[in-house]
C-alpha cells in the first residue's frame, strides 16, 4: 500500500517537475532546458556516476563502506583501454569489469578477511588505483613499445579497435525522427516531453542501455531474490544472518567484488565515450557516485535520481556556451518552486475546520514563509538582471544544486544499520 503510494508520489513529482521545467523554458526562452541534446548529454554524464553509485550500493548494502570506488573506477578505465585497443570493445568491457573487480577484491580481503577499517582500505585503493595504472602505462605504453606505435602515450592508450554500437529508437527518434520534429516546434509541454524522450533514446551507446538496465536488475536482485535478502542482511545485522547459517563472509566478498566491477564498468563507459583510456578521465566520479548513492538513500531509484540530477546539471552547464546561459534559468526555476511552496504553506494555514487558536502557527512558520517569499523575489530579480554569470559560477551548478536538494530533502536518509561495522565470525555484537 505505502509502497504504491510512494511510487505514485514519485510519478506525480516527476510530472510536476517537467511541467515546471516547461514553464520555465517558455518564460526564459532557453530551449536547451528540455532539449534532446541536454538530456542526451545528461544521460552520458549520469551513467558513469550511476554505475559508481551502484557499486557503492552493492557494497554498502552488504555492510562494507566503499570509499575506494574512485580507485576501482580508475582500474576499470585502464584495463578497458588496454584490452580494448587489442581485442575490441567486448574485451574492453570484460577487462574493465575485471580491473574494477580486482580493486573490489583487494578491498574485500582487507575489510572482510582482515577486518581493516573500511575507510582506510578505501583510501589505500584510491592511492593504488592511479599508482598502478600510471605504472602500467609507463611500462607498457612507454616510448618504443608496440602500443606506442599505435598511438599510446603515458597518459593515453591506443584507440579501441572499434567503438561500441549506438542505437536509437526507430521512427520516433531516428529516421523520420518524429520526436525530433515535435521537439523543434517548441510547443508548451509537448515539445519538452518529446525532447526528453528523444534525448534518452537517440544515438544511445549500448553500454548506456546496459547501465540503465542494471538499476532495475539491482533492485530485483537485492530486494526480490533470496540472495539479495542475504546480502542486505549482512548490512543490517550480520550476526543475525550468520546465526541463521548465512555465510556472511562470502556474501560480503561477492558484494564488494561486484561493487568494484560496477565501478570498473563505469570506467569502461568513460573509455567507450572517449574511445580510449585517458589518464585522469574519471575526474572524481567515484566520489560523486558515492555521494549520489547516499543522496539516493542507499536505493537504486534514489541513486538514479541523484545521478540524473547531477548529470542533467552538468550537461546543461557544459552546454551553456552562449552569452545568456541556460543556467540562469535555474533562478527562475527556484523562484517558481518557492512560490509553489509558499502557496502550499498558506493553504495549510488558512485551511478550514481547525479552531484558529489551536492551529500550529508558530512564529517559525511565518518566518519560513517570509524567508521563502524573500528568496523567491531575490531569485526572480537575479533571473531578470543577471545576463551572464562568471563562468566559475556556472561550473559549480551541479554541485550547488545537489547541496540545495539535500538541504531540502536529506532528513530521512537511513543507511544500512551495520554499514561500516567490522564483522568477525563468532563475535557477539
Amino acid at each position, binding site marked *: 500500500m505505502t509502497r504504491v503510494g510512494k511510487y505514485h508520489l514519485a510519478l506525480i513529482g516527476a510530472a510536476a517537475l517537467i511541467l515546471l521545467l516547461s514553464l520555465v523554458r517558455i518564460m526564459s526562452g532557453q530551449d536547451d532546458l528540455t532539449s534532446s541534446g541536454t538530456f542526451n548529454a545528461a544521460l552520458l554524464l549520469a551513467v558513469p556516476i550511476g554505475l559508481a553509485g551502484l557499486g557503492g550500493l552493492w557494497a554498502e548494502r552488504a555492510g562494507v563502506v566503499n570509499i575506494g570506488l574512485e580507485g576501482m573506477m580508475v582500474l576499470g578505465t585502464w584495463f578497458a583501454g588496454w584490452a580494448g585497443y587489442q581485442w575490441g570493445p567486448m574485451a574492453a568491457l570484460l577487462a574493465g569489469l575485471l580491473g574494477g573487480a580486482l580493486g573490489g577484491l583487494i578491498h574485500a580481503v582487507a575489510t572482510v578477511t582482515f577486518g*581493516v577499517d573500511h575507510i582506510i582500505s578505501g583510501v589505500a585503493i584510491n592511492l*593504488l588505483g592511479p*599508482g598502478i595504472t600510471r605504472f602500467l602505462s609507463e611500462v607498457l605504453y612507454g616510448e618504443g613499445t608496440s602500443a606506442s606505435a599505435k598511438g599510446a602515450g603515458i597518459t593515453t592508450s591506443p584507440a579501441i579497435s572499434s567503438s561500441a554500437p549506438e542505437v536509437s529508437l526507430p521512427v520516433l527518434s531516428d529516421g523520420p525522427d518524429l520526436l525530433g520534429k515535435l521537439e523543434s516546434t517548441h510547443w508548451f509541454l509537448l515539445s519538452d516531453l518529446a525532447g526528453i524522450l528523444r534525448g534518452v533514446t537517440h544515438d544511445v551507446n549500448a553500454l548506456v542501455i546496459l547501465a540503465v538496465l542494471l538499476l532495475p536488475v539491482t533492485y530485483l536482485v537485492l530486494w526480490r531474490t533470496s540472495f539479495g535478502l542475504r546480502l542486505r542482511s549482512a548490512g543490517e545485522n550480520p550476526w543475525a544472518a550468520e546465526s541463521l547459517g548465512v555465510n556472511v563472509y562470502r556474501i560480503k566478498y561477492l558484494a564488494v567484488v561486484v561493487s568494484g566491477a560496477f565501478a570498473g564498468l563505469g570506467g569502461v563507459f568513460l573509455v567507450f565515450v572517449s574511445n580510449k583510456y585517458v589518464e585522469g578521465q574519471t575526474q572524481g566520479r567515484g566520489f560523486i557516485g*558515492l555521494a549520489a548513492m547516499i543522496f539516493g538513500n542507499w536505493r537504486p531509484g534514489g541513486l538514479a535520481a541523484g545521478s540524473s540530477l547531477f548529470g542533467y546539471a552538468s550537461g546543461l552547464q557544459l552546454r551553456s556556451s552562449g552569452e545568456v546561459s541556460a543556467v540562469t534559468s535555474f533562478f527562475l526555476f527556484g523562484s517558481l518552486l518557492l512560490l509553489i511552496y509558499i502557496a502550499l504553506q498558506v493553504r495549510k494555514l488558512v485551511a478550514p475546520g481547525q479552531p484558529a487558536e489551536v492551529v500550529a502557527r508558530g512564529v517559525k512558520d511565518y518566518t519560513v514563509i517570509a524567508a521563502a517569499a524573500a528568496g523567491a523575489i531575490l531569485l526572480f530579480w537575479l533571473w531578470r538582471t543577471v545576463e551572464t554569470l562568471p563562468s566559475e559560477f556556472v561550473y559549480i551548478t551541479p554541485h550547488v544544486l545537489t547541496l540545495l536538494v539535500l538541504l531540502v530533502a536529506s532528513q530521512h*536518509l537511513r543507511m544500512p544499520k551495520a554499514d561500516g561495522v567490522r564483522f568477525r565470525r563468532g563475535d557477539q555484537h
Partner: protein
Amino acid sequence: MPAGLNRALLTVAGAVVAIVLAIAISSVAIIAAGASPIDAFAAFFDFGETARSVSNGIAAFLNRAVPLFIAGLAVAVGFRMNLFNIGVEGQYRIAAICAAFVGSTFTAPKPIQIAVIIVVAAVVGGAYALIPAIMKVTRGVNEVISTIMLNYIAISLSSYLVRGPFTGERAAGQLTTTTPQLPESAMFPNLNFVFDWFGLLPPTRGGGVWGFLLVAVVLGLVIWVVLERTRFGFNVKASGLNGPAAFASGVNPKKMVIAAMVLSGAIAGLIGLPEILGDKGAFNSNFTAGLGFLGIAVALLGRNKPVGIAIAALLFAFLDRAQGALQIADVPSSVITIIQGVIVLLVVIANEVTNRIALRLEEQRAARQLGTNKPVEVAA
C-alpha cells in the same frame, strides 16, 4: 607487565613485516618494469652527490612533510569524532587564497603580519568547514556528500577570486594568475641555520627549510594537548567512541559536530601556508592541490594521533622526495604511489593480525592457567 610488552613487541614486528612486504611487492613491480629494485631503493636514499644537493634534498623532504602533517591533523580531528571531513581539500584552498590576499593588503612587523595571515587562514578554513557542519546539524546532510561538493565549489571559487577580486600584478609574459605578492615581512624565516649545527651546507633552494615547520610542530603539540588533556578533547573522544553515551553524559552532539568540524577546517586552513609564506609569497593557479586527500591517508596511517601522523607524514614525504631520483635511476616514479598505497593497507592489516595473535596468546595463557584453577565442588 609481560602481556603489555608482548603486545608492543608484536605491534612493532607487525609494522616491520608490513614494510618488508611493501618493499617486496614494489620490488616485483619494479622488476616487472625491467628495472633493478636495488637501484630503486638506493634512489630513495640517494640525495645526490654534492653537499648542496644533499641539503636541498633534505629540505625538499621536510618541506613536503609539513603540509602533509598539517593535513593529517586536520583530517584526524574529524575522524576522532567519526566525522569524515573529505572537505579538507577545499577548505585549505579557500583559506590559502584569502590569507594570501589579506596578507598582501598591508604591511606590519613580521610577527604581526604572519600572525594575522595565520589567523585569517584558520578563520576562513574554519568558516568553510562550518557550512557542512551546519548542514549536518540542522538538516542532517551527510558530511561526506556536502564536503565533496564543497571541494568542487572551492576550486571554482578560488579560481574566480584569483582572477577577479583578489588578482595581483604579474610580470609581462607570465601566464600564472596570482594574488598580489606578499610583502617581505610576511615571509616566514627559514630554518636553514639548523644545517650549520650539523655541519651541513644550508640548502640553497628557494626558502630553504620552511620555518613553518615550527608552527606545525607547535600545532601538533597543541592538538595533542587539546585532544588528550582538555575537557573538549575528552568530549571529542567520548563522542567518537560512543555517541549515545556522550550524549547521555551531557555532551551536546550538535555543538560537538560544529566544534570538531570547525577545528578541523581551521587546521586545514593552514595547510597552504608553508608553501605561501615559505616559498611562493602568493596564491597562484599552480598552487599545490590534493594535499587534503593525501591528508586522509596520512591521518589513517598515523592512527589519528599527532605522533603517528608525524611519522606517516615523514614517510610519505620521504617517498615523495625520490620522484626525481627514481627517474634518474630509470625507475618509473609511479612506484612511489604504489608503495604508499601498499604501506597504508599492509600496516593496518598487520595491526589487525598482530592484535589477533596477541589475543590468541592470551587465550593460551588462560589454558595454561587452567591447571591452577580450583575444581568446583559439586554439591548434592
